[in-house]
């Protein structure tokens, strides 16, 4: 298919998503069944498992629109969970999870890193498996995990006791004995983050999944996927705030003229558009890279650039939106605060801009 063909599919997907999310309130609270019926949950699931055989490029369209709508719900967490499942050695258990995830029966959320440490680009395994006479047991903790509290199945990244060089994914139910999932309230009311702890959780052997390929590359690919997913959200947030600000500047009058005719306002809006345009290019490039070559070093570069730029740009763009909306922009009722909190949270999720630039700069030596 030509690039133009993909563009058209993405345009249609985007239009549908904007329509559905537009009807889901503000901030949007789309129900999980709605997302399943729209086919968004199974986008990347193989057709043989009732999925759509699509790629991260299509998922990214949805992620961006969720950001635009400041939508609630565990879709980003599930995107990471599905991404993790697809990297595992196929097994009946894994395939069943993928099938049920596509239909919306289960919400698999991956826990890959501890958000209290800003070293996401480098990783660091949050959980460890220990062999005991009674079978494997899981220990560890990960703070500030997006969507973990809404998961019906948790996929925890763990060290493998049988092979110190390998990592594994351990699937557990949230109500397993010894597992803690404690919501950590944050200012962004559109998100739910949780502290996930495992203190000797008994794990059936069938729930310990090996990565199909090199586990280090697979985990890197998943961390990049997580970072780019956040970058997509930030891009959507920026787009929404630019649109809202331009629309407001056209109708809000002061001194007898629309404020959008004043140069100070025009130039601020122009700067917003430039930032959003650059962010979109970097995010598009990173999305293509994640879809085509997950775990590849060049994909990591594109992911870090997109996350560093788009997540920082969104804070600036929303900040300008609040400023240009004047007094109403600062009110609770006005709603821009929700976007500012979301943009600020995005900036810290999946590695700060500074952490990603550290990773980029390591290549200069």
């Amino acid at each position, binding site marked *: 298919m030509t690039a133009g063909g993909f563009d058209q599919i993405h345009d249609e997907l985007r239009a549908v998503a904007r329509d559905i999310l537009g009807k889901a309130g503000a901030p949007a609270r789309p129900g999980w069944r709605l997302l399943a019926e729209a086919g968004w949950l199974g986008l990347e699931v193989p057709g043989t498992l009732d999925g759509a055989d699509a790629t991260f490029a299509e998922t990214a369209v949805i992620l961006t629109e969720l950001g635009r709508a400041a939508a609630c719900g565990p879709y980003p967490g599930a995107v990471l969970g599905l991404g993790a499942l697809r990297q595992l050695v196929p097994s009946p258990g894994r395939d069943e999870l993928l099938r049920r995830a596509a239909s919306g029966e289960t919400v698999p959320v991956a826990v890959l890193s501890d958000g209290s440490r800003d070293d996401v680009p480098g990783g660091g395994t949050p959980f460890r498996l220990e062999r005991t006479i009674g079978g494997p047991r899981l220990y560890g903790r990960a703070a500030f995990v997006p969507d973990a509290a809404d998961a019906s199945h948790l996929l925890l990244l763990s060290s493998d006791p049988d092979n110190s060089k390998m990592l594994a994914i351990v699937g557990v139910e949230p109500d397993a004995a010894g597992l803690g999932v404690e919501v950590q309230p944050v200012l962004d009311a559109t998100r739910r983050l949780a502290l996930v702890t495992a203190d000797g959780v008994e794990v059936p052997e069938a729930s310990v999944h090996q990565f199909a390929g090199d586990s280090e590359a697979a985990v890197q690919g998943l961390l990049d996927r997580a970072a780019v997913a956040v970058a997509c959200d930030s891009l959507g947030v920026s787009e929404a705030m630019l649109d809202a600000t*331009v629309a407001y*500047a*056209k109708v809000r009058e002061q001194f007898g*003229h*629309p404020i*959008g*005719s*004043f*140069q100070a*306002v*025009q*130039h601020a*809006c*122009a*700067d917003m*558009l*430039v930032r959003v*345009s*650059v*962010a979109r*290019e*970097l995010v*598009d*490039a990173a999305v293509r890279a994640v879809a085509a070559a997950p775990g590849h070093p060049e994909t990591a570069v594109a992911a870090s*650039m997109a996350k*560093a*730029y788009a997540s920082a740009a969104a804070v600036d763009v929303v900040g300008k939106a609040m400023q240009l909306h004047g007094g109403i922009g600062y009110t609770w009722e006005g709603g821009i605060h929700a976007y500012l909190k979301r943009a600020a949270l995005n900036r810290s999720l999946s590695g700060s801009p*500074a952490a*990603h*630039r*550290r990773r*980029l*700069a390591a290549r*200069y*030596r």
Partner: protein
Amino acid sequence: MEDLDEFRATVRDWCRAHVPADWRRAQTGVPDEDYVAFQQWWFAELRGAGYAVPHWPARWGGGMPLARQVVLYQELAAHDAPRLVLAFVAIHHAASTLLAAGTDEQRQRHLPAILGGEIWVQGFSEPEAGSDLAALRTTAVRDGDRYVVNGQKLWASGALHADWCLLLARTDPAAPKRRGISYFLLDMRTPGIDVRPIKNAVGESHFCEIFLNDVAIPAASLVGPENEGWRVAQETLGAERGLTMLELAERLGNAGFRWLVEACSRLGLLDDSLVADRLAGFETEITGLRALCRGLVERHAAGRAGPADASIVKLYYSELLQRMTDFGTEVTGLPAHAVLRKPASSGWESGAWLLDFIGSWEWTIPGGTSEIQRTIIAERGLSLPRGRA
């Protein structure tokens, strides 16, 4: 992909064989004649390889696919090749104007001549028509089969060496200011033309004043209809901007940024987390710029370019160049102040950081200042209500 790798290898081999090893030193502080001769020689070298006008249509000697153009510009920059400074207006502005709005006769007359080394200058700005370009006062009065031109042009870059000039002049003083302007091709050997160089902030004299005193232009040298010159100039702007920026963006990434990293490495600054952070920020922004430029060219070719896309690219490049050369000046410290000259024929980032930094205002001011670009982006790109300026 394989095809591109092969092409890259070909360009690399060509660069190794043709880029003179010592040209930077040899071209530093040279007299004007030597600079012009060097530019003409380099243009002929590129032409011989088919690399001089890759962006032109195939029938005129171009036709290189966009992906290959990007590779060509990357490799030329990576091998520190000289830039085509003197031919710049000819191969970009003049060519895109002729291709978009010229007659067959005008194209036949000039495109092969440009490929043969004909040098062009742009005669748009005037003392009272800078940012407000449409306020230009130079007049062209029809007199039989010719126009007689009087007035003064300013900031005409390269006018001293130019064979031809892209000229905007007023043909209907009574019409609203954008409606009474016509677009001409002016032979610089015509009697009545006086060119005087102006020294710029870097100390170079490549831009000039052009005084026009009863200068006769044949009516056949009108481009587009009479009084439609503003539209012709606007329409060709987008096309040329994307193509010129493609090369400049690749050069910023493959030469300027590389030198910045090398300078920081030499000074032991890569261990400084603030420096490393700034470098990674610049690399990220240059990557975004390169994608923007490529997107602009692709959208333009597909007829889908937005009305402010060219302004976004120009504004972003200009200010990124300024911030990056500023940073280069800051990190290289006092030694940057002792670099008194930069090599002629080098890019906007030559590694002479302070001179490059000062020279970056030649991007944020001409061709529509950054302020004008922001207004265009707001009013055309975002459809905000027209301001009072």
